[in-house]
């Protein structure tokens, strides 16, 4: 099918707006595929890979908007471009009513925003990774703490920012920090959890979400959740912000128990963190996802038990064994005698790693990471940097995830589809509903497919956890109480005769 490229010079828009333009363009009759991306070299490469870059496509600067349309004819392609323009025009030019500053002209720089909100204490930065470090630097110089949501920020820039922050008594949460809860305020993707006495320091956004929502489900609450970014615990960054977060929670009067979560740290960082945690005057529970020991759920349970001065409850499944056996028997009924592979299609990075490590401990041929997909049993994390360049995170828009669900279940051996569904502020308004069409397509091509999921969230979240669970259950999805339990059930389905 022929492809057309259009360029709008100096027309910057964020990835969520671009996603909307893409959707509107693809709704135009005669249009097969469309994309709207900023004209960076990375995005041009993505478009070329997708067969959406024409040979004579004009050069673009990163602030130019590049529109690509595969359509029946030029009239349809031009119609798509017009639809994109229409979508931009219909966008509210001013902030929504209720957004402070709505009456005034919107500030275009951090410096003028600071004049409009002189008591500002924190900058939440989610601009494209290419520019994010520069904005974070400006915020630190202005005396603001920084939450750096952006990913694709160079490692050297992260180290420089964190050193500068420490020298000024400031904190940098991130880069690639998806979640924080500061004094009850949810930043980025966070859940509506009650205030309480458990403090979390996390090098993992979805890990923080899983632990904080489970703590809430067990009847306790969160004092603060400090994110530090996934790379903080590497020996290169040296756990600079994790140490700072631990010290802050140790001093915080509302915090009685501290949880530290992340992926396994570098050797030097691990040794230092352990000795720091031992010196704390408060109980500190550490959990490193993928270390082969425990789960995020165990970490949440242990924190609650310490706060209540009880012994921790460690359990493989919350449901009694006969009910699990029955679930396995029922879900496995449609599966044939051949190989049974588990395919995890995730949007939460830490949850993907946790699922991968549970599969790897029990099944053969599990892919070694969560991006390449080389392995009969595998988990892919679509929130990884390589999948999010120029695109919204899969927690905001599930388009890429729906494609992967269909792709991963097209393999004749695919028997169990494993999913995470993440609720909360900033996430899609109906993440379960958004996945249903892909689940149905997967079932159509692979009859008997078992679908297992966990839903990270609380009843107080904008999406409401019970309603989301019910929607999945109505489409035959087995919803487990935690990600770890979902992965363990997937193992049972793949190996029905064991354990």
């Amino acid at each position, binding site marked *: 099918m022929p492809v057309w490229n259009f360029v709008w010079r*100096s027309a*910057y828009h*964020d990835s*969520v707006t671009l996603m909307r333009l893409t959707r509107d363009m693809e709704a135009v009759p005669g249009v097969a595929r469309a994309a709207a991306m900023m*004209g*960076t070299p990375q995005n041009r490469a993505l478009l070329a890979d997708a067969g959406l870059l024409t040979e004579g496509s004009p050069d673009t*600067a*990163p602030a*130019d908007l590049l529109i690509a349309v595969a359509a029946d004819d030029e009239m349809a392609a031009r119609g798509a471009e017009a639809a994109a323009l229409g979508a931009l025009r219909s966008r509210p030019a001013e*902030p*929504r009513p*209720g*957004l402070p*500053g709505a009456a005034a002209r*919107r*500030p*275009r*720089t*951090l*410096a*003028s*925003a600071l004049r*409009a*909100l002189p*008591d*500002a*204490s*924190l*900058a*939440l*930065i*989610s*601009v494209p990774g*290419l*520019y994010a*470090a*520069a*904005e974070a*630097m*400006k*915020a630190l*110089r202005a*005396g603001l*703490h920084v939450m750096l*949501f952006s990913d694709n920020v160079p490692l050297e820039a992260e180290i420089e920012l964190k050193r500068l922050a420490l020298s000024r*008594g*400031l904190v940098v949460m991130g880069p690639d920090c998806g979640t924080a809860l*500061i004094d*009850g*305020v*949810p*930043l*980025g993707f966070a859940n509506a959890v009650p205030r309480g006495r458990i403090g979390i320091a996390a090098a993992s956004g979805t890990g923080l979400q899983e632990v904080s929502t489970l703590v809430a489900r067990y009847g306790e609450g969160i004092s*603060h959740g*400090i994110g530090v970014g996934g790379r903080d615990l590497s020996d290169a960054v040296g756990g600079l912000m994790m140490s700072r977060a631990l010290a*802050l*929670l140790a001093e915080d009067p509302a915090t009685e128990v501290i949880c530290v979560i992340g992926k396994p740290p570098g050797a030097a960082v691990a040794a230092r963190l352990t000795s720091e945690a031992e010196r704390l005057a408060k109980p500190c529970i550490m959990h490193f996802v993928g270390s082969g020991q425990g789960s995020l759920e165990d970490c949440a349970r242990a924190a609650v038990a310490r706060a209540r001065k009880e012994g921790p409850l460690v359990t493989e499944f919350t449901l009694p064994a006969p009910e699990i056996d029955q679930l396995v028997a029922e879900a496995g009924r449609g599966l044939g005698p051949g190989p049974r592979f588990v395919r995890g299609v995730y949007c939460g990075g830490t949850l993907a790693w946790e699922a991968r490590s549970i599969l790897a401990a029990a099944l053969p041929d599990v892919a070694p990471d969560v991006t390449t997909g080389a392995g009969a049993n595998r988990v892919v994390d679509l929130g990884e940097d390589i999948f999010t360049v120029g695109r919204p995170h899969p927690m*905001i828009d599930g388009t890429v995830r729906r494609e992967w669900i269909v792709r991963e279940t097209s393999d004749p051996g695919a028997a169990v589809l494993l999913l995470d569904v993440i609720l909360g*502020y*900033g996430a899609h308004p109906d993440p379960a509903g958004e996945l249903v069409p892909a689940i149905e397509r997967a079932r159509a091509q692979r009859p008997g497919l078992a679908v297992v999921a966990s839903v990270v969230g609380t009843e107080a979240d904008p999406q409401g956890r019970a309603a989301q669970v019910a929607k999945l259950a109505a489409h035959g999805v087995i919803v487990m109480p935690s990600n770890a339990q979902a992965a363990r059930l997937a193992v049972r389905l793949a190996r029905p005769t064991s354990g």
Partner: protein
Amino acid sequence: VVARGLLAGPPQVISAGLELFAATLASLDVPVIHVDWRPAGDGDPRLARLLAELSDDLIQELLEEVARHLPSIPRR
């Protein structure tokens, strides 16, 4: 200037990037300002970096505004 501690009270937020984050905070009555951010100098990251090094807010803002209207800087 002594920075306020991160946990010294609910944050007041300046948000740059995804507007949905600012909208969420506003809906929860958290003081927030959303910056209508766009890349300076036609998106040249080197220029953005140089501008970030400037310490004078007003000069920085003025230069960013100028840079935003510059045509693309020729690249190698």
